[in-house]
């Protein structure tokens, strides 16, 4: 695994005070928080920062991390020392196995490409989607892991869907990793795979509950739930707002002026639509019920965009000249009022 330089991630000196570390984290968190940020890779950067802050804000973890030495460089191959964690006193009691490392990841069904990401994002540090480096040093089974008393816990992950998938419904294959205590007392991450059917009509930010797929309770208690938060990927043609979609639809000047019957793409396939005579560029027409499914279903808005034919041939030029000569049209009439 690769070494992570937590001081570098937060942009602070190794001698930084707790207040300086907190200030650096707050400053970067404001910049890269996934709900707020427009920065590229904001989510990945934010997770790095959370991981770094989780270690550096905790005096015990920071001291142990510092013990690794200052000579390590970010990205260098690293293995935890065999005596890792010995010689420290733990304020929270050592040996409790919390959830470790990656709690949940999702990938598309077999044979499909363009997987768009899902990672755990729990508030509790041990269940966040932290690196292998973090898990090996501070995760479940390490002397630093301090669980929540063995209670069942919910897990949260994000799942990215294409707009067509939210329209038709889809399936996702999720790999869930759970810590299990082995007979010798050590903790092993056990992976199991679930296939989830997502019904049509889910919208941005909506939650999907998978009962009993969270972290198990100690003993024979009921497990927590897994929640998937839906994020709809931007679409090439359609803009999504709630359950409504908007399509910008190019039309010829004569279609707008005279009216026309046109074929319009929708999420459910092409439909015929009538453009009324005298339509203008920017005008929005509604196709009722052609948005995402639901109670009630969303609508599709068709925003007309009048496209001028180029005057690139003698015939086209002649037609434009004829219009100039015969039409009483002043596009700047409003300016002279």
């Amino acid at each position, binding site marked *: 695994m690769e070494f992570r330089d937590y001081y570098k991630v937060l942009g602070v000196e190794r001698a930084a005070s707790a207040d300086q570390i907190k200030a650096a984290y707050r400053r970067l968190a404001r910049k890269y928080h996934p709900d707020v940020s427009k920065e590229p890779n904001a989510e990945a950067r934010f997770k790095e920062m959370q991981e770094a802050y989780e270690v550096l804000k905790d005096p015990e973890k920071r001291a142990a991390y510092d013990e690794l030495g200052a000579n390590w460089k970010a990205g260098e191959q690293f293995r935890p020392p065999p005596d890792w964690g010995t010689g420290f006193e733990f304020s929270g009691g050592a040996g409790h196995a919390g959830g470790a490392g990656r709690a949940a990841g999702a990938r598309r069904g077999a044979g499909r490409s363009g997987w768009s990401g899902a990672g755990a994002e729990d508030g509790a540090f041990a269940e966040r989607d932290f690196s292998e480096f973090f898990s090996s040093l501070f995760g479940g089974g390490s002397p630093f892991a301090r669980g929540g008393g063995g209670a069942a816990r919910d897990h949260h992950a994000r799942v990215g869907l294409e707009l067509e998938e939210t329209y038709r419904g889809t399936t996702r294959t999720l790999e869930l990793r759970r810590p299990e205590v082995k007979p010798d007392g050590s903790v092993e991450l056990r992976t*199991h*795979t679930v296939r989830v*059917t997502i019904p049509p009509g889910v919208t941005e930010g909506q939650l*999907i*509950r998978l009962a009993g797929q969270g972290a198990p309770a100690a003993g024979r208690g009921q497990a927590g739930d897994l929640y998937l938060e839906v994020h709809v990927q931007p679409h090439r043609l359609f803009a999504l707002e709630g359950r409504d979609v908007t399509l910008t639809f190019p039309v010829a000047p004569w279609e707008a002026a005279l009216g026309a019957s046109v074929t319009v793409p929708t999420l459910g396939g092409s439909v015929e639509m009538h453009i009324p005579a005298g339509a203008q560029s920017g005008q929005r027409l509604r196709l009722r019920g052609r948005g995402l499914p639901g*109670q009630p279903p969303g609508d599709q808005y068709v925003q007309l965009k009048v496209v001028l034919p180029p005057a690139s041939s003698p015939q086209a030029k002649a037609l434009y000249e004829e219009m100039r000569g015969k039409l009483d049209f002043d596009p700047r009439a409003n300016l002279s009022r």
Partner: protein
Amino acid sequence: MAGVTHRLEAHVLGEGDWIGATEICRLCWLDLGAVMELAELGVVAPRGTPPGEWQIPATALPRLRVIGRLMRDLGVNVSGAALALELLEARRQLERRIRALELLVSDH
């Protein structure tokens, strides 16, 4: 070690679902006091009494979860997070309108 594949039906929390205050707190990283303040601010419209027994529509979950994350990760208070949420939503709306106008004037 990989286990067997299980097929699961997902339950989408959406229109028609009402969620208890305790579960809302758990799902959105909020405490009951914060939920009460958000009700005062008009961000959520719960039904029932007392607050501990409130039922809240599941359609409020996406907004409440953003508020919960902003409070948890950025250290802002309830009204600050609610204000940030409104500004974020306004920004998203403006971005959509700008994008629509750009498409009207672009060559593609």
